[in-house]
């Protein structure tokens, strides 16, 4: 893993660039935030026992506190970070879900690494849930094609756990728009996923 202070400086710098209007900076941010979130999640695994589940919202907030130098950025950059983090969270989780699907379909024994000391945790992603997440991801990709704004909102609300106001701030929209689009997107996605 890279030096954490370096990553934090990079992220802060990129956020400032985003604020100046540099579109590319957003894309650059993504892989950094993706890695950091994953590392953060793994770093937290020792903190809990079998039946506690982790919380995506808390993780995103923790990442923000850890990675962003809050003195160096404007308050609107907070929203940008959260939007990118929400997107990263979506990809982390949906990628995992697809991996699970692939493993199962590959047949044969799955490599489940069981810790010597820790029993195989009973709380895991069930096959059905993995399928659901993958289906949601596919539907979300389709939504992205026809209405990108709605797909971003879904990322923020569902994967990032952001509030209406936070989502609005992150994406430069009005809260009313977010509220409406969120309802619409959910309805559309639900219909897609049920039909699929």
């Amino acid at each position, binding site marked *: 893993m890279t030096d954490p202070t370096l990553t934090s400086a990079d992220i802060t710098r990129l956020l400032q660039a*985003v604020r100046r209007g540099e*579109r590319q900076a957003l894309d650059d941010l993504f892989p950094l935030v993706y890695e950091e979130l994953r590392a953060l*999640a*793994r770093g*937290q695994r020792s*903190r*809990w*026992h*079998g*039946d*506690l589940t*982790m*919380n995506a*919202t*808390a993780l995103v*907030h923790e990442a923000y*506190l850890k990675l962003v130098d809050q003195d160096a950025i404007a*308050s*609107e950059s907070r*929203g*940008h970070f959260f*939007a990118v983090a929400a997107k990263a969270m979506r990809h*982390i*989780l949906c990628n*995992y879900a697809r991996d699970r699907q692939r493993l199962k379909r590959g047949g044969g024994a799955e490599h489940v*690494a*069981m810790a*010597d*000391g820790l*029993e195989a*945790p009973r*709380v*895991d*992603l*069930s096959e059905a*849930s*993995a399928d*659901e*997440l993958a289906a949601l991801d596919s539907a979300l990709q389709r939504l992205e*094609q*026809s*209405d*990108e*704004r709605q797909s*971003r909102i879904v990322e923020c609300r*569902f*994967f990032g756990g952001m*509030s*209406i*106001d936070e989502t609005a701030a*992150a*994406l430069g*929209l009005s809260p009313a*728009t977010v509220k409406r689009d969120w*309802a*619409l997107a959910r*309805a*559309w996605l*639900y*219909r897609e996923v049920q039909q699929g």
Partner: protein
Amino acid sequence: MRSGGAFRTNHTRSARLGALFEQALDLPVQEREPFVSHACEGDAALRDELISLLEAHLAAGAYFDDLSRRAVAPALSAVARQPDDAEAMRAVEKLRERLADTYRFEQELGGGGMSRIFVAEDPRLKRRVVIKVLPPEIIPTDAADRFQREIELAAQLQHPHIVPLLSTDTVDGTSYYTMPFVTGESLRDRLARDGALPLDDALRIWRDLLDALAHAHARGVVHRDIKPGNILLSGRHALVTDFGIALALETAAGGAQSTTRGPAIGTAAYMAPEQAAAKADLDQRVDLYQAGLVMYEMLTGVLPFEAESTHELLLARITREPAPLLRREAPDGLVALVTRCLARARRHRPESAEAVLAELDLATSPPPGKPTFAAVAVAGRPRRTIARYAGATLALVTVVSLAMVRPSPRSTPGGAAGSLPASITASGPRRTPDIAAYEWYRRGMDVALLRTDRGRREGIAHFERAISIDSMYAAAYAGLSRMYLTVWNASAADERRTWARLAEEAAFHAVALDDTEPMAHVALGWVRLATSDYGAAEAALTRALDLSPVVPRGHEGLARVHMMTGRRVEQLAEARLGVEADPFSHSAIRELSLALATNDRCEEALDGLRTLKTLTPPAAVAGVIGGMCYASREMWPEAISELQWAASQGDNSATFAPAFTGYSLARAGRQDEASALLSELLARREQRHGSFAIATVYTGMRDYDEAFAWLDRAVDDGSLNPYIMHPIFADLHRDPRFQRLKERMGVESPR
């Protein structure tokens, strides 16, 4: 950042769709279709689309909420748990290269879990060795020395039943150790294949194990990870491997007094209760407990505890007695001995492996006709009694097992629940024949007032001592339950369930031991309040007050129930009765202040709270309630000051002070500070305050959507608190969603 217009979207159509959708949602369900049909006249496609979406919308909300819980959270946990395979592989490969001169790697053995196990040949001595490689992350880089030192201690052991350690080293952060390769299978393999073993085999293996333990303990080495996987069967002998590794790992991970929360090292299924409870001062009796488990499994083929999850298993280990050992031809003395090794409290176990061996000899070869100590100490009756009660409630079985663990002439297991030995006639908390037990009980009660971490720990210890002197002491169990609840109150959100369970178990004990003890019912009532079972709480507290109208905390408890069920007037009346019964009781004064505050009589409430602040140490909760009083009067500077005072007291029973501070900051217009506080609460949700705190701040910010969402979660994670009924949440009370919340909280139909 892109503005709304910069997103890729089909503008015209979707704008119309969106607008109509939004308008339709504002209408009652039955009016939506007519509205849409009318508005989309001429555009059948649009109409169909809208109607389809509106229908989907009805189910979508709940679906996504559920999906979040069902899939997002577990997926994240799963991601977190993924071992970094690539990294581990690289480390092992590097190690193999380094060791290539010394050892010729032959093959890898499976079943090692986190460690990788290889069989190799030592070409110089022409013998085979086992090399166990530990994963890099398990020993922090700066701890390799500590690990080595601990291993060296274990390496001193020389005994026919202990597999010796040959060497150990750390290369580039990867640690490994070697030992001779022992031909034969492990006990785990044998058990997997055959199930329960023949009695002779089991006895032989157990003797070897105990012999090894006795040797190691005499040299100050504790194994801590005794389990069938670590016992190798070679010919007619058993050998124990991995001696000292567990301790070495733990020492390396965080020092011998490691405060890693929960059991970090050790197989959950074979953990001793004190390991499961993560106590710092483990001693050789851990090994004895584990040896007991091994023997139990050899005799019956199963382990004495069953549970759904690791967490449940650990909890069971701490709070319950094992399922009785049933094996037909096993001598009574042997069964009793193994059961004693499995005693939950280590003081009830045999002192040493030597002692166990001695008793084992007696138990398994008594001269005919001569009663042995073991056989006399535990007559056959308790086992039959257990069998008789096998289907009964947990409390009964526990009581009976207690009697078995410390047999005493006056205990009558058959009549456990409800009836008391005739010698006990005193009333109330003195209902114990033993003055020493009462002393400890009194100390526990005194220390309970201190409201500090240390006070809580001491309180628990005092009550446990009282119980160890008199295992039938119902009031002491009630006191213990109360102590557990104070810990629960001060705990981080993710630990609360454990403490609530412990409190519940203790309260059950108390009631089972003596149904006429009012303190037992009070304890149960408060437990039920903690678990939001208001009907049962009311029942228990009412019974307690029937038995004794002045029982401490009885009226206070009922006042709380009334608070939760919205009966403010009754709440105040009960609280007054509490103060009448004992004008100097802290909890009575606190409850009265809370009742006054809930009834919006702030000045009177603040008066009472001032009294609580004069105590030593001052009761921080007074600051919380005081802050809420000022907040309901919109006196923000005063509110914030009170709350910050409460938070500064270092008494973490004022857990909610930050939450109300956030609320006050938001209402006072200090948005940035409120947001910052919210961020912190969100990041530390599980460790500290739980969802209720977050909902509180959102309420302050007037984001009621979020507030209700988090309150829903608070019901789930158990952080919802009676404060929700306080007038500062009046905005929420007026909202129709509050009704549904009350139903979910179970306060709508309390009976």
